[in-house]
């Protein structure tokens, strides 16, 4: 009896967490941008990293073509891979979005690289990021800034942790 209850509770918590997420969608588009966030940048850093989740709810594939932000000269999409003990950043000119699938940008995986920052990203601030998709068009999101080196957005920390622990048991 205890186990199913725990499971239902976990699902309920996950749903609540999902609902709390700052989901930002363009009305015309089938691409949903969830949980945008960025890391505060260390002193004098010329680059920053932003992360988010893209969900293509449409029937057709879409593509993330590019992005702009007032806080940086250039925005690039990168994946970090580790091969033979080497950490390598690879630029992805276009990010393919498969129908009914999630594409997650997360530390250690894919990141949105903000190149030549015009100002440091400070914890607690927000900035705007405009994403351009091949079909969904332009989607503007507001990106909150978490700590330097944070592994997740500030407001998600306890919930994500709880979920991770449950999974490990």
């Amino acid at each position, binding site marked *: 009896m205890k186990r199913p209850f725990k499971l239902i509770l976990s699902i309920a918590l996950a749903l609540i967490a999902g609902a709390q997420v700052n989901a930002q969608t363009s009305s015309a588009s089938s691409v949903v941008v969830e949980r945008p966030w960025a890391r505060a940048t260390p002193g004098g850093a010329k680059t920053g990293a932003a992360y988010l989740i893209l969900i293509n709810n449409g029937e057709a594939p879409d593509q993330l073509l590019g992005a702009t932000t007032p806080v940086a000269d250039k925005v690039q999409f990168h994946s970090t891979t580790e091969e033979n003990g*080497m*950490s390598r*950043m690879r630029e992805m000119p276009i990010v393919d979005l498969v129908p009914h699938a999630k594409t997650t940008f997360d530390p*250690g995986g894919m990141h949105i690289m*903000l190149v030549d920052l015009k100002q440091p990203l400070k914890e607690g601030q927000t900035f705007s990021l405009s994403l351009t998709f091949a079909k969904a068009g332009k989607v503007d999101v507001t990106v909150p800034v978490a700590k330097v080196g944070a592994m997740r957005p500030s407001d998600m920390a306890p919930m994500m942790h709880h979920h991770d622990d449950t999974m490990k048991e």
Partner: protein
Amino acid sequence: MKTRTRRLTIIALVAAAGAIALAEAWFVATPYPKVVTSGTAAIGGPFTLVTTDGKTVSDETYRGKWLLIYFGYTFCPDACPTALTNMSAALEKLGPNASELQPLFITVDPQRDTPVVMTDYLKSFDSRIVGLTGNQAQIDGVLKAYRVYAEAQKSEVDNADYPVSHSAYLYLMDPQGRFANVIQSSEGGEEIAAWLRKQMTHRNG
């Protein structure tokens, strides 16, 4: 019958060629921690570098302390802040034991990472982490000694904003300057602290 034998021979030849190719690929691609964790491989050695406040230091400067070394660069937005944050958290978790340890951040990108740039950058992390840079020859020397492969991925279109491939590990050297072990720099602070404690007691005892 004859065709069958020939076919079998061909299959055998193809299989043998495949096996050789696989073996070669394995030898070439085996990540070197498999080798280094087995003992005191020749990792580490003499180096001369410059601290962020302009002092010239060498490997001998730090004798008597454990060295925890991360090779990275400040232009890197994802892996390097993660590694330095994990290192900072590990130092905090170590408590007083951290005094036996000297954490170092050695740049793989001396052209962009001048002492001034590194000083500024390291202000966001634990103040015990010492940043080291140098001229290209000095950096090449330390990278070679530590068998760290760093490679600037410069392109013709973009000469200033290039990423650098670099080692994903933290290197631990013992107080005599001998190689002790490596750990993934993406491990959390708690994991790194536990690992350091284990490594340091093991060698001390």
